[in-house]
């Protein structure tokens, strides 16, 4: 009978190789810089060439009273987004167009005019919700924030983001929790200029649609106002035929 060590000898290279693979994997995971993680999260969010969404927003105040907004959202690439309100009646037809380089337009049917929006409204509430115009415009954290990795466990990366110099934000920092296996930000804490926790965004009900993971529910909590906005995606389509003309002023004023 050969000693155990002799029998085990041929397997050692294999084991070492496997251990090396695991270590390399771990090492490679750790080698992703916080900026890379953030960029990858942006890339995942912006991976579809385009998307069409029908969603409902519930605005819930501290007494639990609810208001409902229904809207259509078209998005193409990172920077082109059109939001059109379907209800309530007094907001029906109001449409918002976000284009590259922070160019934003608002169409108010009652005034029959398209108005360019100056950047002072970027941080204002979007149609009474807890999302700001800026929150609604695009998903480009890596372009606008610096990132520091504060924690990493089996499931999540935790990043702390701060606005880059010359980027005007109402937030002093963000804490972002990212699912490691999907690179989806499932929670973002927004801090005001004084460093106080202001808003919290949570994303849930993750569903794989076509080749993309999508959070079908988002909740933005404004802790100062004690007010929540829950956004439920009722329909979403990716990579459909979507003309560039949708993201124009010509299309913006088309009600239907």
């Amino acid at each position, binding site marked *: 009978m050969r000693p155990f060590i002799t029998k085990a000898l041929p397997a050692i290279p294999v084991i070492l190789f496997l251990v090396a693979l695991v270590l390399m994997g771990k090492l490679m995971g750790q080698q992703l810089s916080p900026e890379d993680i953030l960029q990858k999260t942006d890339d995942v969010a912006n991976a579809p060439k385009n998307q069409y969404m029908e969603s409902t927003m519930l605005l819930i105040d501290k007494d639990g009273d609810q208001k409902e907004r229904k809207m259509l959202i078209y998005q193409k690439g990172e920077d082109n987004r059109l939001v059109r309100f379907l209800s309530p*009646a007094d907001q029906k037809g109001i449409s918002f167009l976000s284009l590259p380089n922070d160019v934003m337009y608002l169409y108010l049917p009652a005034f*029959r005019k398209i*108005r360019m929006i*100056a*950047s*002072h409204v*970027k941080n204002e509430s979007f149609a009474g919700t807890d999302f700001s115009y800026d929150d609604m415009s695009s998903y480009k954290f890596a372009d606008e924030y610096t990132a520091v990795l504060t924690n990493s466990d089996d499931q999540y990366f935790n990043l702390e983001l701060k606005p880059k110099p010359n980027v005007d934000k109402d937030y002093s920092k963000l804490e972002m929790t990212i699912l490691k296996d999907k690179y989806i930000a499932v929670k973002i804490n927004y801090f005001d200029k004084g460093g106080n926790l202001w808003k919290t965004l949570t994303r849930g009900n993750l569903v794989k649609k076509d080749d993309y993971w999508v959070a079908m529910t988002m909740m933005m909590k404004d802790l100062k106002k004690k007010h929540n906005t829950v956004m439920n995606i009722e329909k979403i389509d990716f990579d459909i035929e979507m003309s560039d003309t949708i993201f124009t002023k010509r299309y913006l004023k088309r*009600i239907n």
Partner: protein
Amino acid sequence: MNRNIIQSILTGILLLAGFLFADDKLNISGYIHSENRLQTNEQEITWNENRLNLQFEGGKSNKYHFFSEVRLRGLGFPNVNQTSDLQLQEKSKVYRWGLEFREAYVDLYGFALENLDVRIGRQIVSWGTGDAFNPTSNISPDDLEDIYNFGERLGINAFNGTYYLNDNITLNGVFIPLFTPATLPIGDFSRAFSPQIELPPGLSIGNLSDEILLPKPSISESSQYAIKIMTTLLSYDMSLSYFKGRDDFPLISKVELTPVDLIGTMDISTVLQYPEIEVIGGDFAGSIASVGIWGEGALTIPKKLPMTTIYPSFINPGQLDTMQTVALENESYFKYVLGGDYTFKNGMYLNTQFIHGFFHERGKDALNDYFSFRLEKNFFNGELKVIPISGALAVNNWDDAKNNYGLVYAPEMIYYFSDNVELSIGAFILDGKGDNLFSSIMDKDEVYVKIKVSF
């Protein structure tokens, strides 16, 4: 209007719309608006309006779209003078009804050319970047019935084509076959907008009558057109425009004085016409840093309008003499507006404009300066909007501004009771000195309450 006719029209519209557009996603929406104003000095109700606004809309998104808006409303007060007024079947003397056919048009997208959109029918065309005051917007006439709600316009029958030359240049052309005049304010502001007649010392005005001459409904006399080119340059939206048509406010072109007694009383009859004008305009909108800015200017070139005055002859008593002068010189004048808005970090929103030349002002020496301003803030997650500072300041002589100004201060509070339901209370507080739009009615302060329900 006869009540039965109104009912028939409305029923007809609803049924027709339902049948015609059953397959075209017909949407019916609108609002109910009720408003009452009280003049505080005399405790008199000055405005009593109840309005049902209906909008019909539909179409196939990439081919065509139709829209119509009708407004049924009661405005004013009972007009009962005798018993029989109370016995009218249509109750028109008790309730004062009105039906306003504001818009009814069809949009045809990609009409004949892929990049051409056409709108045909009665429509409100609103040009310019100014906030409610738009000197370049001369296509749809001003609806100044309620002067405090200025910026409202009337629908006109028009062919309106927009051609998208490329991603950044858009051409817009509008042809209006038939001239439509502006409506003038009712109530206290009516005298500020009515042409004033002044007689030499020693003479007084007896009866006043006027006649308005509308242009003949022919293409050469009544039609108007306008063109505009729009682009975005250096992150600024801008446009250049040209309008050829008529001023939508009438101007006296003939005065006839008839003596009625020996102490100098004269009956006056006037004829008013709508002067022909050309308007070259331009506007821009953008931002400096995070402050929104806009500007709009219009150079109006009027066609000379002669003035005929017929008066009792001083040389040949009992006969009339005629004098020919000029009602409107063909001297151009420039109206403009410059404005900006900003939202402060605490959510307070400020909107202010400098306006040179109001709607009804004509001629370079007659244009006054105005500032409009509005400061507002939302509370309770937007359920309450408070507008503590809002209004307009008029200055008609900068050399002696403290004796030549007019101010309308219009604070307001809007309570959004629920989605689609808003309740407003506010006031119009007037002050001024000298001869200007607001000072002439400075003792007519008003408070109001409004409710609007959208559906």
